[in-house]
């Protein structure tokens, strides 16, 4: 296998494709966490998005409906989490875990009749440019619209949090719900919105997997990506741009691992597969050692229950 320039271009393109679900899910979760809510149900919401997107595609034969439907299903399932943690004041960690277990089970139940059905080809943009320009072609062109959206999302998220009034409200609610509430902000409502937004992005991330990345339905097909997305948010110390960088690193490891296996690199496959998880731990250790760095962006009230006396 020659490592020429066009091969590297294709390699980078495939790294970008594999990082899309991580960017989407982590950007969504980042907003949720910035409002002070820790939702460990990312994996569950993603897998629900994956099956509902795929099922809607098979039933309606319309990819637009499938994509929108997957986001809606993410919203619906995250509403369970929102209702429990915000209205019934339950523990965030336990509720999120329940959401993941429930989501994996429910998706397998719903997906029973969709196993083995071939997916539909998802339209890609600028496919002619992809072939005609060496190196940059496969990097910049010939991707699905979801990929372009995913790569714009961290910048939009950054702008939203830093430059808009709503973003300021979200941060205020996450850092000091009591003062925000005293300022007349409806903390619970803001948190509900952030949870539902996170659900929509996780649903989309799942649909990307089942409609675009590997267009078919396989039980448990998110395969731990939701948990990596959660780790990514911490890895990025709650900064959207770093989420993008982190997702590319993880996508890169996944793709390199596949290529190294193909070349016949003499390292056990399992070791390479374990790399993303080990990397996450190492990065967590490195960034957590410096408590100042972590505190800079950490939503102060993350995971704490807020209750307004009436």
């Amino acid at each position, binding site marked *: 296998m020659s490592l020429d320039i066009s091969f590297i271009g294709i390699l980078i393109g495939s790294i970008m494709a594999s990082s899309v679900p991580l960017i989407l899910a982590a950007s969504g979760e980042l907003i949720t966490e910035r409002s002070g809510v820790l939702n*460990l149900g990312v994996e569950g919401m993603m897998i629900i998005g994956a099956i509902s997107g795929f099922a809607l595609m098979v039933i309606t034969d319309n990819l637009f409906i499938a994509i929108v439907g997957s986001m809606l299903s993410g919203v619906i399932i995250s509403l369970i989490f929102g209702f429990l943690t915000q209205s019934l004041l*339950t523990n965030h960690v336990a509720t999120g*875990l329940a959401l993941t277990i429930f989501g994996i*089970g429910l998706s397998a*139940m719903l997906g029973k009749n969709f196993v083995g059905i071939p997916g539909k080809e998802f339209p890609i943009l600028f496919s002619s440019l992809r072939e005609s320009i060496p190196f940059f072609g496969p990097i910049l062109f010939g991707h699905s619209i979801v990929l372009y959206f995913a790569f714009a999302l961290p910048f939009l998220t950054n702008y939203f949090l830093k430059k808009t009034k709503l973003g300021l409200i979200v941060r205020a609610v996450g850092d000091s719900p009591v003062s925000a509430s005293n300022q007349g902000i409806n903390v619970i409502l803001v948190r509900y919105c952030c949870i539902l937004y996170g659900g929509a992005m996780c649903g989309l991330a799942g649909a990307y997997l089942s409609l675009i990345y590997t267009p078919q339905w396989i039980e448990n097909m998110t395969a*731990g990506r939701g948990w990596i997305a959660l*780790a990514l948010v911490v890895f990025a110390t709650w900064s959207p741009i770093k989420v993008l960088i982190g997702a590319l690193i993880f996508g890169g490891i996944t793709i390199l691992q596949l290529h190294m296996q193909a070349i016949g690199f003499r390292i056990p496959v399992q070791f390479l597969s374990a790399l993303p998880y*080990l990397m996450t731990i190492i990065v*967590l250790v490195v960034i*957590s050692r410096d408590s100042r760095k972590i505190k800079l962006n950490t939503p102060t009230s993350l995971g704490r229950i807020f209750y307004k006396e009436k």
Partner: protein
Amino acid sequence: MALYFFTPFIAIILTILGGGIIFYILGFNPIEALKFYFITPISNLYGFSELLLKATPLCLIAIGLSFCFKSNNWNIGAEGQLTFGAIVGGGVALLFYNQEGFYILPLVILAGAIGGMIFALIPAILKTYFNTNEILVSLMLVYVSKLILDYLVVGPWSNPEGFNFPETRQFSDSSRMPLLFEGLRIHAGIFLALAAVMLSWFILYKTYLGFQIKVSGLSLKTAKYAGFKGKTMILVVFMISGACAGLAGVGEITGPIGQLHRMISPDYGFTAIIVAFLGRLNPFGIIFASLVVALTYLGAETAQIFLQIPKYTGQVFQGMILFFLLASDYLLFFKVKILSLKKNELRH
């Protein structure tokens, strides 16, 4: 206080109702489906033994987790600790694959507990010395441990006469848990679980360590003020939790399985988190909860055989139990509020 132990029953009843609704939506007769789910599996002696067989690892792991959760340490990687315990214990069992002797099984069990303990120490040490989030680390290690197991059973430990199946040799009889009854799969591992229940009750309610754990769980500030050595306690609760998960893993491979292969646990380590909560982190509550949750495993298998419902419905039920349990805690919160209101009225 009575309500605190009563709400789990409300959660179970709501889950059964919710399950009935889901079955109805899926086009099954809900009464019949629920009967296949919750009654058929335990209507004979064999079924009852299977229930205890599945409740054993759940109970063991949940007992361990209760130490972590009570002290506000979120170890959610018990599945990884179970797997690593099974790897270490299984490794010892494989050393003795062609030998017999009364000393082998205790060695295997001990190795399993130590394996789980070591694996749980990783998130604990990272948390205490590097301030790292234990939720994420313990969870990432689940995947790592499963990949280590996969590597071993495919590669160096695979059975030389096994036609390249991803499994090790069968353990010798001396490495197997003694069966309690002829023809049933229930084995001596259940005594390990019962011993863990007794021991944990003793530690939690009768020792200084147990007191420290409970105080740290209620208020970290108070614990610091009282001068408790927080770091040591974190290490200890993780070690207890890991050892229990390791024991559960070793119980599975020396009990019903008898060798190492890829699928040694149907996510017992994750489900045990639900068991711990449903049992209210109380040793005796956990016995009860492990039986209830084990029934969702059995019921899912029965429903798959008789009604062709995917066995993943078990997870739907497990998720629902936890949802309803957490939701019904609101009743407790509400009651506290009413009580405090009444007190205020008295004062005025």
